[in-house]
């Protein structure tokens, strides 16, 4: 017999091991699910999780899909550290994409080097503007940023729908709900011929480095972390909560907006009715699995990206439903939350009743 016992200090080892345990548990559940769907588990596992990584094209796709996850995840993690829950990154991404597309379509005939930087700027500002709404309402009117940022995701989707069905629809596009294709000067340069991964990926690495520096070496980053971990201490030290909320939302909004630019000026090359297959929501999982740390977010984004491209591969090769991807994403977060139990608790063998009574909490959580 063993029982759960509260650790004296949170375990650092478990902090780092927990995402790995969660990933392993997800893979194990995945294999079971493959069996259940009538697949050979090992073969399906290979097709889903290994094969995409065996070709240069596959690795390129991995980095391509990881890019928006990194950008959104890094921003969300900064907010989550300060207890600011922006869960509307998908809306900010969408508005960033719209803003960049407006610039690209407005300067349709201009072949100039400043066009791409201008699009990136527009995208970042668009994302920031969208994120500023929940920040303003939370700081000014005490309104839940979770609900407001989420409501604005649906508003952003509908705005995009209106634009591609109306004002921004390609007049020569046979009435398809999409914009004109962007001209070359408005497309992000590819990193390598034959791969689709583009300049947004190094940009996302820059964001990781910037976020790491911000959290580790700036006073603002320190203030936000204190506010998240010890709100009372932050209050006592006179750290301003509104400033944290604004900082978190503006940074994560700008990064999500850039992720949107990366999509429309990258693999899409135009504005379509759907810009993101839920990258902004997957980034929530990425932020938690990455332990709210920029480097962790980078690694978690690669894993999450593998779930996307593995899901596509499995759909093509094994006719598995693509919805499995979403299922795996949800499972990963559940397993992570469960495994995190062992950061604060440990399993101890039950030796003496007297000793157990002396040390164990009376309300056993297991």
């Amino acid at each position: 017999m063993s029982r759960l016992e509260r650790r004296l200090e949170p375990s650092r080892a478990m902090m780092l091991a927990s995402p790995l345990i969660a990933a392993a548990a997800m893979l194990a559940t995945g294999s079971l699910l493959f069996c259940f769907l009538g697949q050979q588990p090992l073969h399906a596992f290979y097709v889903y999780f290994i094969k995409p990584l065996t070709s240069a094209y596959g690795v390129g796709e991995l980095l391509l899909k990881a890019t928006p996850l990194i950008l959104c995840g890094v921003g969300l993690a900064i907010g989550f550290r300060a207890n600011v829950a922006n869960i509307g990154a998908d809306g900010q991404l969408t508005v960033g994409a719209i803003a960049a597309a407006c610039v690209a379509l407005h300067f349709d005939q201009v072949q100039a080097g400043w066009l791409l930087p201008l699009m990136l700027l527009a995208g970042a500002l668009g994302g920031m503007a969208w994120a500023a709404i929940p920040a303003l309402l939370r700081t000014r009117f005490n309104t839940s940023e979770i609900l407001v940022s989420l409501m604005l995701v649906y508003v952003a989707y509908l705005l995009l729908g209106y634009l591609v069905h109306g004002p921004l629809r390609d007049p020569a596009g046979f009435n398809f709900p999409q914009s004109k294709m962007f001209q070359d000067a408005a497309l992000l340069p590819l990193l390598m011929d034959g791969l689709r991964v583009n300049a947004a990926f190094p940009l996302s690495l820059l964001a990781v480095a910037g976020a790491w520096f911000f959290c580790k070496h700036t006073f603002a980053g320190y203030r936000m972390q204190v506010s998240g971990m010890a709100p009372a201490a932050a209050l006592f030290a006179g750290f301003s909560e509104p400033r944290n909320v604004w900082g978190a939302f503006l940074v994560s909004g700008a990064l999500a907006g850039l992720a949107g630019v990366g999509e429309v000026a990258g693999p899409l090359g135009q504005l379509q009715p759907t810009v993101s297959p839920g990258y902004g929501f997957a980034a929530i999982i990425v932020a938690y699995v990455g332990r709210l740390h920029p480097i962790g977010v980078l690694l978690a984004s690669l894993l999450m990206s593998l779930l996307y491209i593995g899901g596509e591969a499995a759909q093509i090769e094994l006719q598995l439903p693509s919805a499995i991807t979403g299922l795996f994403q949800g499972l990963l977060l559940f397993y992570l939350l469960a495994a995190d139990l062992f950061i604060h608790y440990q399993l101890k063998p039950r030796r003496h009743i007297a000793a157990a009574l002396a040390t164990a909490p009376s309300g056993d959580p297991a």
Partner: protein
Amino acid sequence: MNTPLLIAFLASTAGAATPLIMASMGELVTERSGVLNLGLEGMMLVGAVVGFMVTLGTGHTTLGLLAAALAGIAMALIFAFLVLTLQTNQVATGLALTLFGVGLSAFLGRGLVGQTVAPMAHLSLPLLSDLPFIGPLLFRFDAMVYGSLLTVLAISLVLSRTRLGLTIRAVGESPHSAHAIGYDVIGLRYGTVLFGGAMAGLGGAYLSLALTPMWVEGMTAGRGWIALAQVVFATWKPRGVMVGAYLFGGVTVLQFHAQGIGLDVPSEFLAMLPYLATIVVLVIICRNPQTILLNKPMSLGQNFRAD
């Protein structure tokens, strides 16, 4: 607006309000016991797909509703186990439940797209249902519309007039005191979370069995989140939930009647209204911190450990 149009508008408002009432009332009970479950959207989606699947397979709407409630309970059980037993963060776990529900419902519903079932039967009373004006507004709805109103009444009575309701509120306000006088806080919270799951499942199933009798991926379209917001601006009171749900039902169905009224606005902008209205009402209610402080269950969102 002419009379037939007005009747159609009001009648469809009741339909749109019903799933919101169901989901919100479940969440209200959960929150009154001190637990914040952000997984409403996920539980509704799974309820919608399971209810549709079972109704399609058996031909019985009642069985579909029952299955949807059970599916909601199963989803809520995951949440309850993580939050109440393993003490995980309520916000993160609720988000996980929604993301999982989105994935699971898409997965379960992959073969159901494009199929339809017969919509839920509507009440038909001799004489009464045929009355002009009053008939279609009072006596021609399906059972769930009436059921949702009864639910509001029942929950309101249970919360205010019974020992069980008092216990739920006590646990929500001060779990430590409730524990100290011998109540099983965790057990009671399991109960309220599972009840919330059942109600969310039913609310979801109403979408796929009555409102639009088919399954579409992500068909709740944020209704779970609107239902969550509704609990806040009802200031955790059943009455408020009902008023709010009918208000939002009206805003939601406005887009389908806009042309008849002669509103020439792109449909996307009308479809934005429920979300924008949610934000506006949230701001109005939350603007005064006192309103929230006085009404919000004190322990909402905080885990309880009996040690």
